[in-house]
């Protein structure tokens, strides 16, 4: 496996720099030979600082991306219905960071959904809608005119389109994270997740049986991701936009709590021929039709709040 060279980050250099600032800021008089040079012991400083850094474990919470969400809905046998997408005409209504971040996620899920069903013109319209949200948030170059042109040129090439969607989503999230706006990055993800839940639950007919219904199965599975949604938002709960979304989304908790999922122990079964390891287990879901209806209604209310 080849590894391309990348400059490593000398942590001790950063530590030294930090200490240098602290010393200077405190008006240290430590001088050497009459100059303003600060003498530091790299060994002592590095060891202490690194111990502190090492004791902190970094935690990531990962939600299904808009692309994965759309794939999950499609593979569950969903049909395409444009009626359930957030109309692109609504873009003009979104002027706050909260609404633009939520709808960047929502439009990216809609874009993914339309693309997976080969809705070429709709895909271009939704890429433009996502671009407007990204521009409004000051996300530079994540979706530019070249992206739209590339999408148009490859409109009949599903693989390239998936790659463009994945690339733009990654660029948007990384831009927000890199620019110290992780709260907005979380809001984008949650917007996309709620849109997927809304599309999937809207596609379920009220006469559909719960048992052995793959689409309902996918919706129920979101109970597992809901836990991650709460943890992700909780990390930025000091942000007022995140706090308000956390309050709104918590309404789903009482309903998800009424659903039980029991899973058997996982058996690891490697397949040497395909190289895909199967994680074998069974799950049993307990949910009444009334609870599912309640979930559908709550998701509908939440999503309409996000797009209004």
């Amino acid at each position, binding site marked *: 496996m080849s590894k*391309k*060279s*990348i*400059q*490593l*980050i*000398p*942590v*001790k*250099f950063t530590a030294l*720099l930090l200490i*240098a*600032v602290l010393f*200077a*800021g405190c008006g240290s008089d430590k001088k050497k030979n009459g100059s*303003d040079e600060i003498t530091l012991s790299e060994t002592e400083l*590095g060891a202490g600082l690194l111990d502190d*850094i*090492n004791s*902190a*474990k*970094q*935690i*990531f*919470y*990962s*939600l299904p*991306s808009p692309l*994965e969400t759309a*794939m*999950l809905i*499609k*593979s569950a046998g969903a049909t395409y219905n444009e009626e359930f997408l957030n109309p692109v005409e609504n873009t003009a209504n979104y002027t706050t960071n909260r609404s633009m971040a939520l709808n960047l996620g929502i439009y990216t899920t809609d874009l993914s959904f339309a693309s*997976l069903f080969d809705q070429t013109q709709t895909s271009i319209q939704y890429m433009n809608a996502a671009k407007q949200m990204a521009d409004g948030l000051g996300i530079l170059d994540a979706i530019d005119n070249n992206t739209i042109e590339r999408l148009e040129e490859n409109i009949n090439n599903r*693989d390239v389109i*998936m*790659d463009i969607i*994945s*690339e733009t*989503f*990654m660029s948007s*999230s*990384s831009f927000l994270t*890199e620019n110290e706006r992780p709260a907005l990055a979380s809001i984008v993800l949650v917007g996309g997740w709620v849109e997927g839940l809304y599309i999937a639950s809207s596609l379920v007919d009220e006469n559909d049986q719960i048992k052995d219904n793959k689409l309902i*199965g996918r919706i129920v*599975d979101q109970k*597992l*991701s809901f*836990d*991650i949604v709460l*943890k992700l938002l909780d990390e930025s709960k000091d942000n007022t936009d995140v706090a308000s979304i956390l309050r709104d989304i918590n309404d789903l908790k009482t309903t998800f709590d009424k659903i039980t999922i029991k899973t058997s*122990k*996982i058996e690891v079964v490697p397949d040497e021929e395909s190289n*895909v*390891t*199967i*994680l*074998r*287990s069974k*799950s049993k879901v307990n949910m009444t039709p009334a609870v599912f209806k309640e979930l559908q209604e709550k998701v509908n209310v939440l999503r309409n709040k996000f797009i209004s």
Partner: protein
Amino acid sequence: MKKVFQLTVAIALLAIVPLSVNAQCKGFAKKMCKVELYPYTHDGNYHAAILTVGEEAELYKTFYSDQDYRISVCGAPGLPEIEFRIIDTDRNVLYSNKDNEYSWIWDFRLEASQQLKISVKVPTADGLPEEIDGGCVAIMFGVNEKN
């Protein structure tokens, strides 16, 4: 005056270093880690961080039944081989790349949807240059479209 200048330079560097480090990390993830996902489609999520030697990171994600996944965990050249383990909610280790020559990728499919933890560690290693204590580590996922 010289001290004020040094302070200004130091503060400016402190402000710039994290941004350039993050941008570098994204570039690394995109160029090195994402390509490992092929022929799977990158899901679009981005998880990367600067980890120091001996430091661990954990990622929590729900994986869905009957969906093929590829995980790619890669570390910047110069770092020791990155260890990653997939752990279920009962803390059973389902996979460890340490048993597979520190492979960067693992392909799997679940029969029932599960929330799993990916534990990533930059192990301590003898002979590591003293000035290199950390580097970019990225975790990415690929999915396969099912018809």
